[in-house]
């Protein structure tokens, strides 16, 4: 069983969508990085990701990992945000038939799963249709 510190240290990203960007080449990173893989710069400045974007791929998970059993089937997608950042997350409040490439979505803060029988509740971002 992992200690709460592992969960706690990801909170800036999962709750507040904190990212950083390269002061040299302007590339934006989520999660934040210590060195820019594009230009090698170590001069990175704090920023936040955009909260809207489009679906660039998706799937419906029918056979889930154990901690997601009560949610299956559910959709997971990769979304490209309007600032170019790409990230993975569940796509919810959306019928499976309405999932499409290019579909506009926005980030919402949600509960993701519970860690074990008496474990902590894990929160973070999910995507919902942006109409």
């Amino acid at each position, binding site marked *: 069983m992992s200690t709460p510190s592992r969960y706690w240290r990801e909170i800036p990203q999962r709750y507040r969508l904190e990212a950083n960007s390269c002061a040299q080449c302007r590339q934006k990173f989520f999660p934040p990085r210590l060195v820019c893989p594009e230009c090698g710069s170590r001069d990175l400045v704090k920023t936040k990701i955009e909260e809207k974007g489009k679906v660039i*791929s*998706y799937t419906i998970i029918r056979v*889930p990992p154990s901690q997601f059993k009560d949610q299956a089937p559910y959709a997971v*997608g*990769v979304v490209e945000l309007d600032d170019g950042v790409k990230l*993975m997350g*569940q796509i919810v409040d959306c019928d499976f038939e309405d999932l499409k490439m290019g579909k506009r979505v926005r980030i919402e803060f949600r509960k993701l799963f519970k860690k074990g029988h008496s474990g902590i509740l894990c929160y973070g971002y999910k995507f919902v249709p942006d109409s």
Partner: protein
Amino acid sequence: MREVAVVGIGMTKWGELWNKSLRDIYVETALMAIDDSGVDHIDSMYIGSMSSGIFVGQEHIASLLADYLGCAPVPSTRVETACASGGLALRLGFMEVGSGMSDIVLVSGVEKMTDVGGDEATYALGTAADQEYECYHGITFPGLYALMAVAHMDKYGTTRKQLAEVAVKNHKNGSKNPLAQFPFEVTVDDVLNSVKVADPLRILDCSPITDGAAAAIICPVELAKKLNKPIVKITGSGHATDAIAISQRKDMTWLESTYKAGKSAYEMAGKNPGDIDVFEVHDCFTIAELCVMEALGLVDKGKSGEAVERGRTAVEGDIPVNPSGGLKSKGHPVGATGIAQVVEIVKQLREESGERQVKGARFGLTQNMGGSGASTVVHVFERE
């Protein structure tokens, strides 16, 4: 660098081997390779294993297996780069022999996956993806490859049936491989009607959970000539990495690590994709085989589905892929897969593959991939 040859291979029947432990499976297989080569000792050994710690609760297997093989105190090294661990074991052994550090090296892979239940196996395999930014959101390995499949279908018009054709072809080949876990044929309808796992992938698009090992003995070509065995040289080796999280790649349909590792291996061997007679590639999911074909330059981008549908990758086709049955039919004990590919290529180049033999094969290639493509190891082989 010295020229290096594969002089011995070993592999036993793969499957759900309830009555055999990790060490049993491993030692049995390693002894086969030693016997096949005719060497009387080994100088060093490498073992590819992705996750013995989760699958059987045992780390430190390099020493455990050297001991049970009766080879301690030879240096023994465990290698891990997810499902490409076996391929990397070969590469490190190749470097050790090529450099002159050692003469006879056992390169091998093993995974004992059925000592845990399905949930735990899913968890263990999931550790090859980004725990904080992929698994945290409920993705699974079939799910990651499904994301690649959806993107490939959208970008290139690849069809659901073309994906199924990969499984049909590999099961047909595997039905002629007595060591395969599932040595039977399936039809397109079987695949299309099988249980959904992660849309659009179904259970018959996925490689199985398998117990198994594979091993090979490598040595300098000069020494190989004295052993009176057919000589299969390793002429090219490539290894490359990419972002572990699929969202961080520029194009989800393109396996950059496979492209880069392939390029290095082709260049080292002085060969082009068109020179290779037989390929063993990492078809952990049907879509993977298609993306790998494109990244290795077997076909142009977006043309893999059509090539499979037209039978070009069948044993009798012009670019035979996975005559062993691939991961799909032969099974996928993750750490062992990269070495099992070598076993098949050596058999093919020795012309010992029976009914699934690619006629006149002289040049072969193995491509072994970790995670959703964040690591790839490629080797090129040549029969002398």
